[in-house]
């Protein structure tokens, strides 16, 4: 394996041979999987994304599924979590409601997610990443940013080769495939990883970024969702190139701070560093209902269960949240988000519930909902239950919840039920 030498521009993705010119195939191992890029050895920020992660795991574990369209997702009323590439050819996409997905692809095999299995595989991949660099920023169970700056000496080769080796290792040891994007910042790395999926490898240098981005839709910029896209389209901006043609001042004038940020992204400039730890922004749970629900009491009962699940996750993660978010989706797919700031950060189910209940009450005026969720954001490390001068009983209630947690962990989920399951204990209003 070549270690150092003149500036390399091509690498064989199978045997890692390096060549100082662009190659269509590898002269060492005859593989045609070579990758050429003039600045390949200089780029160090990567985005690593598992290909159709949940579906790939299911196919790996059940070979009968290999040639079939596979959708992983919840029940008849749920949404698609992941679908395999075969299902994608039918137009199935993740986050699509299941009924739509099944309409597009009626012969798909629908599999209930096995989260614990996926989490375990995700953890294994993350550990492999951590062998390459300590700076790993997980985005989700199957996606992460890596900063490999300064790892050449350690590994004896460029970040590009380290990442190709990671791809190969994941394929061999876990029989799963990952796609890698390599660039100078997170935004470009993510854009790169999506350009050559699945089992892809793509690099984008800072110089070529504006040209590459220009024909792409503004949606390529992470953070531009449907709402902002609509706003931009209304202003005659559909592609990144449309933004590039505008002056930064003009963008600021039209869209404020967002405009400046968009302008920078359009030229591939993105300042956010890859950070480890503390990057978790929210803890939440949501559920898509079997049937649309408008009954306030029924929704409130669900809210209590979800508050408990969110609290369980916050407790497991060791975090407190300062803001409680309520999410609802109406029968006509309109998403409603409401939030409220707490007096003090919490991870307790009852505090989450007490804060979210009035938010829910404002929305339960007859509308039918198909989804309800509750979450915590503005997270900080858990700091214990604070006494609230305006709520003398808060500490006592917190103590009760902690005791119930201990009992649940010893004797199982149903060991202690705060009577809301029996109807309406949930912490009562004062």
């Amino acid at each position, binding site marked *: 394996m070549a270690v150092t030498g003149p500036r390399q521009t091509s690498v064989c993705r199978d045997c890692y041979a390096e060549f100082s010119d662009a190659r269509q195939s590898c002269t060492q191992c005859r593989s045609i999987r070579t990758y050429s890029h003039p600045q390949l050895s200089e780029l160090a920020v990567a985005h690593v994304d598992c290909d159709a992660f949940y579906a790939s795991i299911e196919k790996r574990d059940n070979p009968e599924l290999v040639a079939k369209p596979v959708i992983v997702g919840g029940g008849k009323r749920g949404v698609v979590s992941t679908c395999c590439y075969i299902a994608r050819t039918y137009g199935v996409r993740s986050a699509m409601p299941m009924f739509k997905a099944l309409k597009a692809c009626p012969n798909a095999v629908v599999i209930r997610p096995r989260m614990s299995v996926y989490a375990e595989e995700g953890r294994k991949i993350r550990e492999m990443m951590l062998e390459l660099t300590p700076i790993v920023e997980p985005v989700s169970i199957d996606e992460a940013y890596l900063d490999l700056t300064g790892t050449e000496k350690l590994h004896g080769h460029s970040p590009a080769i380290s990442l190709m080796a990671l791809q190969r290792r994941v394929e061999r040891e876990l029989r799963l495939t990952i796609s890698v994007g390599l660039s100078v910042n997170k935004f470009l790395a993510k854009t790169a990883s999506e350009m050559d999926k699945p089992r892809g490898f793509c690099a984008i240098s800072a110089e070529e970024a504006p040209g590459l981005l220009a024909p792409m839709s503004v949606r390529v910029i992470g953070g531009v969702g449907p709402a902002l896209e609509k706003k931009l389209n209304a202003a005659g901006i559909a592609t990144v190139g449309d933004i590039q043609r505008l002056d930064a001042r003009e963008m600021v004038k039209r869209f404020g701070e967002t405009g400046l940020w968009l302008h920078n992204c359009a030229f591939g400039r993105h300042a956010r560093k890859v950070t480890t730890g503390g990057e978790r922004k929210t803890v939440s749970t949501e559920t898509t209902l079997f049937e649309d629900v408008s009954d306030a009491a029924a929704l409130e009962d669900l809210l209590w269960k979800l508050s408990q699940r969110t609290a369980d996750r916050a407790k497991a993660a060791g975090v407190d949240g300062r803001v409680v978010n309520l999410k609802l989706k109406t029968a006509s797919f309109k998403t409603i988000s409401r939030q*409220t700031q707490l*007096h003090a950060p919490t991870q307790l189910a009852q505090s989450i519930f007490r804060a979210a209940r009035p938010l829910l009450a404002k929305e339960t005026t007859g509308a039918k909902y198909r989804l309800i969720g509750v979450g915590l954001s503005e997270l900080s490390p858990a700091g214990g239950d604070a006494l609230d*001068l*305006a709520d*003398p009983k808060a500490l006592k209630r917190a103590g009760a919840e902690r005791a119930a947690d201990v009992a649940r962990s010893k004797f199982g989920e149903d060991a202690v039920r705060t009577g809301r399951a029996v109807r309406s204990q949930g912490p009562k209003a004062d």
Partner: protein
Amino acid sequence: MKLQIDRNHLMRALSHVQAVVERRNTIPILSNILLQAEGDRLQLTATDLDLEASDAAEAKVGKAGAITAPAQTLFDVVRKLPEGAEILLEQKENQLALSVGRSNYALPTLPAGDFQTMAEEAMPVSFEVESAELRRIIDKTRFAISTEETRYYLNGIYLHHAKGANGNVLRAVATDGHRLALAETKAPKGSNDLKGAIVPRKAVAEARRLLEDAPETISVSASDSKIVFRIGEATLTSKLIDGSFPDYQRVIPKENGRILTIDTKAFADAVDRVATVSAERSRSVKMGAGDGKVVLSVSHAETGQGVEEVEADYSAEALEIGFNAKYLLDVAQQIESKEARFEFNDSASPARVLDAEDAGAQYVLMPLRV
């Protein structure tokens, strides 16, 4: 309606009521002020439907009548007129004509009949209180009023009759959950029926404004849903917050054993200085109490470090406790005596702060995690 009025008299009455009017209104009449001329008085009334303020001024009434006009414009025009000017106000068809010498204004009006005033109701509680005393207990507590919307019952001062250490008192309490302020005055005759009234923040602010130039005593009356302050000729009627105020007695630590006495001003100045380098959001200041001194310190990765040492009387076991600098300052500013007394338990429990000059006043502060 037609009348002549001294600019200063009109200005004074207008300034007593106009702040009640909300700046943005969806209902046009709520932007207006009600003017009623009768006898030798011009009565002005403003409302936001929850709070109503009215005051009267001496006027030469040519023709009695009532009309409403935009509060903000009227106030601004009158404010800019020279002192001592004689203002002529006259209703001309749909407009209110205002003229002084060569200045002539015509303001749009709405009929007085459309103006909503609060229904009169029986007020079972009624007492007179020294305005200086009411002013004092408001000032000592209003800073702790919460702005948290979900706990609306904290958005005011809880005014009630209570048993104090030295007899019956009229007590004011406010808390936002992080700090609590309590101040009291000897119970005025008749106040013992005031079981508990949560007076909303805006009403507190307006009452305080009226108390700025008030006669020696004023009258307060209350029902279950309303409170009325009669301050000279001005009347302020407010709906009360419909909710139950928390049982604050349970959160006031009465047996904290670590006692610290410190020069109030030296302490406040040091807190103010050291807080300059604290992080914008938490404004967290660490207070280390040790033998004969307090060390106030802030250490922040981005904003820097600061340490202030202040001499203090402290002989208990050393203690480190964190507070929000703003809350410490707010409390220090309320302490009248030269020395403030802090009572601590441990770094996670609330601290009580007392004022030697004002036995009734108590402040409770929740520590921050440091």
